């Protein structure tokens, strides 16, 4: 066994030496030697979070499919990511049900002009008052981006967010909206197809085929609020889509995580320094 091994090695020796000689000659000809090194490039956070030591992922105005509790899942995912990948301390609290909060605020806002107007009788209700009431109609269920739009004003309510900030000793507040809706699409897509020729040789060729596809679209908008003032300091909006073959039964929750995986690095990059791993070539 050993003899056979050494004989084999001896047979290969001239080849190995030749290869080494060629490499050495090439290196000498190029006049440089290369050393591959791993590097970790730190990318500074896009947002200055130095005034804050704690972060409250408060909750989201969530809409779309009912298969996933998007508010709950987004809060859980972002908190766990921030715990491991940022220096901010994450506050544990029940996620706010912001759809209900917005509807409550809306009721109060629309009831006030009604109460004021009732003393003077219905005749004095002006057109502009009617318009403002009409403008504050909040759809009870959020199915698409249009339904989500009227909820946006909740994030501009500085008094509300200041109160939340005071309750948790002025942290950085993360809130926003998340829309996770089913999507279907049909049309021509490029697929790789295996073909065998007369001699039985396999080839893979791109082919345009008509396909029915289904999946989900995820559109989160993260809003960063200063808990001391209630004012918005930054926002980050993203939109991602995953479409599968119509026969594919990928659960909604899996797709949600697949899409959030693409978005989370940007979210973390806003709040904390991220290290990007790679390799570079050092030269002599």
């Amino acid at each position: 066994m050993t003899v056979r091994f050494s004989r084999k090695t001896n047979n290969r020796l001239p080849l190995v030496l030749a290869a080494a000689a060629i490499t050495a000659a090439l290196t000498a000809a190029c006049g440089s030697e290369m050393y591959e090194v791993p590097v970790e490039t730190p990318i500074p956070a896009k947002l200055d979070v130095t005034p804050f030591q704690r972060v409250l992922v408060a909750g989201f105005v969530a809409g779309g499919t009912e298969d996933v509790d998007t508010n709950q899942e987004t809060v859980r995912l972002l908190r766990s990511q921030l715990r491991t990948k940022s220096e901010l301390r994450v506050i544990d609290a029940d996620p706010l049900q912001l759809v209900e909060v917005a509807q409550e605020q809306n009721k109060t806002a629309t009831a006030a002009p009604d109460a004021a107007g009732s003393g003077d009788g219905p005749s004095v209700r002006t057109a502009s008052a009617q318009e403002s009431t009409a403008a504050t109609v909040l759809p009870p269920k959020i199915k698409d981006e249009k339904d989500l739009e009227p909820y946006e004003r909740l994030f501009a309510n500085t008094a509300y967010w200041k109160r939340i900030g005071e309750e948790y000793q002025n942290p950085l507040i993360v809130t926003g909206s998340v829309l996770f809706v089913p999507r279907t699409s049909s049309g021509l897509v490029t697929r790789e197809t295996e073909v065998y020729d007369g001699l039985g040789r396999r080839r893979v060729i791109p082919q345009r085929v008509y396909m029915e596809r289904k999946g989900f679209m995820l559109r989160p908008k993260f809003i960063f609020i200063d808990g001391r003032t209630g004012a918005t300091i930054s926002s980050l909006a993203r939109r991602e889509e995953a479409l599968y073959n119509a026969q594919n039964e990928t659960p909604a929750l899996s797709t949600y995580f697949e899409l959030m995986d693409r978005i989370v690095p940007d979210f973390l990059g806003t709040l904390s320094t991220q290290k990007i791993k790679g390799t570079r070539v050092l030269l002599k």
Partner: protein
Amino acid sequence: MLLAGAAVAAASSAAYADSRTDAREQVEFGINVAQRGLWREAIYRWEKAVEIDPKYAAAFNDLAIAYEHEGQLDKARKAYEKAIALDPNNANIRQNYDLFKEINDRAVQPKDK
């Protein structure tokens, strides 16, 4: 006259060879310490190397990598650009620079998109 010219050329070529040798020593030492994770020491060595020999493309390339590793992205970009200007056909320097640009673009991305 000719003799004097040749002597000057030989002297300057010898001086160049000397400075390249000195710079190369610094570069080699820098590579050695960088491979052990001592990037700040490497930066010191490579800064010395480019000071000794400002036409040493490899030294600028290594310095750029070290700046990148330390998060000094502006300095890294300038060093890469200098390395490419000195050795435009070096595929390794170009590849390093392309990878750096990808990260640098991400760092300066707008918040809302």
